Structure formats: C-alpha cells, structure tokens
C-alpha cells in the first residue's frame, strides 16, 4: 500500500517538474522525486542503492543544478525608444547612462552578461513578435520595463527597481506573458 502511494507520488512529481514554468522549481521537484524513489528502493530491499540515490539524487545533483542555473547567463534585453526620430545623440548618451548602464551593472553583479538589442521597432511589435527576457521602453523621461513572467532573474530586478527608483525618470514595471516569440 505504502509503495503504491509513493509510486503514484513519483509519477505526479515527474509531471509537475515537466510542467512547471520555472526551472528552479523543477529542480526542487526532481530532488523530492529522487527522495521518494530512494524510499521505494528501501521498500524493495535495496538499502545500498537507496543510500546512493538519496545522497546523489537529492543532495549533490540538486545543488549542482542550482549552481548551474545561477550561472545561466543568456539574457536578452530589448531597448526601444518612442522618440528615436526627434532626439539627438547627446540625449541617447545621457539616457543610456541613466537606464541601461544601471541595468547592465545590476546583471553584471549577478555574473550574467546581458545581450542588449537596440531596435527601432515599436515596442508593441517587439512585445508580440520577439522572444525576450526584459524589454525597456523609453518615452522621454518615462521608462517602462516589460519583464518576462517566467524569469526569476526578472523578479530580482523588479525588486531592485522598486527599492531605488531612478530619480529623474518615472519608471513602471509590467509583467508580461512569455512572448509569442519564434
């Protein structure tokens, strides 16, 4: 009876880890899955294998995956400006100094190298057609951040923005459903 419960639990955990949107959660589900499977091994009379599975599956590989996720640094940032026709070069430099340099610094501290794409497309076009992690839309001194809903690095960035907003600029943070990207 107990073993059937745990076998069903294993299937459920495997499905959860496949369907969850965040990779971190999937790693934790996999750790619980291997803990359950080590209990199953114990019930079937293989304590040796159970010890190895419990240690390697739920301790070592979980920590290893978490560290690997922290090091994952392909991070796409789109930058659009509503008034790219009217502004001059000096304004671009100043605006860049204010927003993008701060964003870059934030992600560099987290050991990620952001890939920044400047585009002249309208931001709505980018929202619908491109796959991105963060979209920065600037309209003179209003800045909109569109963050991907499933990205946990964006969570940290949202906290950072809310903690110390850029003084001369009015910033606004919007969570966006993962783009209809190609």
């Amino acid at each position, binding site marked *: 009876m107990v073993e059937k419960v745990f076998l069903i639990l294993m299937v459920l955990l495997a499905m959860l880890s496949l369907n969850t949107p965040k990779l971190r959660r999937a790693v934790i589900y996999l750790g619980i899955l291997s803990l359950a499977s080590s209990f199953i091994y114990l019930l079937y009379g293989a*304590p*040796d294998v159970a010890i*190895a599975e419990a*240690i390697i599956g739920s*301790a*070592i590989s979980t*920590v290893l995956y978490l*560290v690997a996720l*922290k090091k994952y640094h392909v991070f796409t940032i789109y930058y659009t400006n509503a008034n790219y026709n009217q502004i001059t070069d000096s304004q671009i430099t100043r605006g860049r100094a204010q927003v993008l340099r701060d964003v870059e610094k934030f992600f560099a501290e987290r*050991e990620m190298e952001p890939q920044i794409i400047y585009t002249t497309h309208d931001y709505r076009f980018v929202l619908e057609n491109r796959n991105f992690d963060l979209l920065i839309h600037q309209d003179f001194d209003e800045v909109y951040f569109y963050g991907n809903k499933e990205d946990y690095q964006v969570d940290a960035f949202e906290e950072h923005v809310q903690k110390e907003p850029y003084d001369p600029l009015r910033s606004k943070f919007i969570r966006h459903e993962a783009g209809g990207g190609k």
Partner: protein
Amino acid sequence: MKSNSQIIARVTGLLYPFIILIGFYIIINGHVSPGGGFQGGAVLASAFISRYLVIPEESIRIKYMQTLEKVLFFCIILIPTLFLFSSTGNDSAMANTIYLVVMNLLIGLKVSSGLTIIFYRFVFYEGGE
C-alpha cells in the same frame, strides 16, 4: 553569488559534524551493513558541497585535493596487490576484515575528493568568464 541566506548557513553549520560522522559510519561499517565506500564518500562530498552554501568563497585548495586523490588511487591499486601476494596461505577472518575496512576507507576518501573537485571546479572555473 554573494548573497547567502543566514538560516541556511547556520543550519548547515550545525549539521556539519553529523554529516561527517554518518559518512564515516557508512564507510567503516560498509562490510557488515548497507553502504560502503562509494556511498559514504558521497556523504562526505555532500558535506564539502554544503560548505559552499555557507562560505561561497574560493578558500578550498583544489590542488591539494587533486594530489590526495592521486595518492589514494595509487594506494587503491597497491594494497590489493600486496594483499594478494603476501597472504596466500592464511585466510583468517581478522585479516580479511582489516583489508575490507581499509579498502572501503580508501575508496570513500577517493570518491569524496573526486566529487568535491568536480563540484568546485565547476563552480569556480567553468563558464564564469
């Protein structure tokens, strides 16, 4: 990488001696109870790996661990050879037990240093640049 949770750091610090103790228990009792060199070595390695959660710094000496692993590997080759050639006549239970415990201990230490080296190399050298 810089920020680490205070709760995890404290609790892991409390658990350290117990992890190391259970690792050595599994290794030394490997020949009579479930477990053995590999499992106990993995437990010891998990103690080293959880050390990274407490102090995420590069203060561990990987070079010494590599030398230790090489020496242990040499011993793992050497001791069975010596045992095989020296004791053809006597097959006392005492000698066999000592041989098993020593071999389990060597294998456990080698596995733990190997897994620790893999982990710390991955954390500090790979893909960070």
